[in-house]
């Protein structure tokens, strides 16, 4: 479904991503794990067109994303749940969700998707009139995820969904990710919490300062000594 080939990205003079290739197959849940500053978020931003790539190709079902305007990418069925949620704080919960369906014109479809999101996240239904800025961190994460689901995407990019959440909420969020995965959505997940990420993923890439240090099945990686020492605290 998604293929990143030999990607190079610069922040000014800093070579942030150094020739990375990643592949996510249909229906897979793939994780990018690694320390702060390894370039995980940069990769997602480049896929979504928020950052330009210096060289390399990003293909979604064979379509080259870099040749597109960033705001058109969602039309191809790729939605992005950004790091730090980025909900619209001064809009209500329901307005936020409706913004998620901005590209849809069919009101009936929007209402259906709204119901689908509320079914996934009953807490959001309870708070549909509340301003998003007043939600707790976990609720904001649910809202950002729900908002991304409003277009029925084929694929989700999820950036640090567990960041800043309490252990109970982290579990809840990971359960939701697994649920979405089981419902058939392809997911590329970026996480600092390598242990949890590997536990639910099919495959994973370990990033170190802009290059891929290791890749393989999540199970194999979680049993690898180097990964265990560096990322799993064992």
């Amino acid at each position, binding site marked *: 479904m998604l293929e990143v080939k030999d990607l190079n990205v610069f922040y000014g003079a800093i070579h942030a991503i150094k020739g990375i290739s990643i592949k996510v197959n249909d229906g897979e849940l793939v994780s990018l794990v690694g320390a702060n500053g390894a370039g995980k978020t940069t990769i997602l931003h480049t896929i*979504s067109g928020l950052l330009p790539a210096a060289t390399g190709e990003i293909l979604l079902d064979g379509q080259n994303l870099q040749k597109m305007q960033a*705001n058109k990418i969602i039309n191809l069925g790729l939605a*992005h749940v950004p790091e730090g949620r980025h909900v619209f704080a001064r809009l209500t919960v329901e307005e936020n969700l409706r913004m998620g369906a901005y590209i849809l014109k069919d009101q009936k479809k929007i209402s259906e998707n709204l119901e689908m999101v509320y079914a996934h996240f009953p807490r959001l239904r309870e708070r549909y009139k509340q301003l998003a*800025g007043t939600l707790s961190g976990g609720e*904001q994460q649910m809202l950002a995820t729900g908002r991304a689901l409003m277009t029925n995407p084929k694929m989700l990019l999820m950036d640090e969904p567990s960041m*800043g959440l309490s252990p109970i909420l982290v579990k809840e969020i990971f359960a939701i990710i697994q649920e979405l995965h089981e419902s058939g959505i392809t997911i590329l997940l970026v996480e600092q919490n390598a242990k949890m990420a590997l536990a639910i993923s099919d495959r994973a890439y370990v990033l170190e300062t802009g290059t891929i240090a290791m890749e393989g099945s999540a199970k194999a990686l979680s049993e690898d000594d180097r990964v265990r020492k560096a990322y799993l605290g064992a």
Partner: protein
Amino acid sequence: MSTFIQTLIVGLRLGSIYALVALGYTMVYGIIRLINFAHGDFIMVGGYTMIFTIPLALAMGLPAWTSVVFAILCCALVGMTTELVAYRPIRKKGTSMTALITAIAVSMLLENLAQAIPAIGPNPVVASQIFSTGGFSIAGVTMEWTTVSTIVISAVVMVVLYQFTQKTKLGRAMRCVSEDKEASILMGINVNRTIVLTFAIGSGLSAVAALMYMAQYPKVYTTMGMMLGLKAFVAAVLGGIGIIPGAMLGGLIIGLVESFTTSYVSSSMADTFVFLILIIVLIIKPAGILGKNVGEKV
């Protein structure tokens, strides 16, 4: 009592003009965090457009005020051009300081360019009567048609604008872009187009303000937007810049303060009080009357 009501009405009239101009400042600030110093000069652009198009409207058998349609189009065009030619390139390359300096430069450019155009020149021109003369009296209070029209039209424009930003898809997109450009892109919003649209609307409003202003003070000259623009900017800051109802509230407050000071203290003290109130409000509430930070939890 009748003096009080008369003063109140004059204040509301003046305040509605300030509010319309303040809306332009606040909408542009809200979306790109830029104080568009050229906004006051858009009023002048609207003023001259009407000076030139009122004869046209009259020749077509339409009332003089219909020339505002031309003024709205012209101001919207000037606003969009300013964004496309001056502000957008600066935003990509410069800092917020360079953008601010550019805004001042655009303001100077418009004023001086207007003076250089032979048909405009440095001397003021006087507009013909815009709304019908006269009015009516209730219980010793005289209401001129000009005043009634100003208050009613402003109120309608503000309600429509507010509903537009709250209820329509485009309006919601504007609010989203003003809050978070990256997330807006991820939703599929064309951010640049939304910004241009905001300039068109804000500048169009300044044409409506120009109509109201000219109905009261028919003299049109190239620097007419300076003081009016400055006070409207103060109104926007007073209400909480970036917040649409704040601009409306701020405008009305400034208009009322000016009117009451003129009537009960002295007309020469009017501006003093306006700016004094600004300072006091900002000391107590730095973000403006309606300004508040929605705390984003992380």
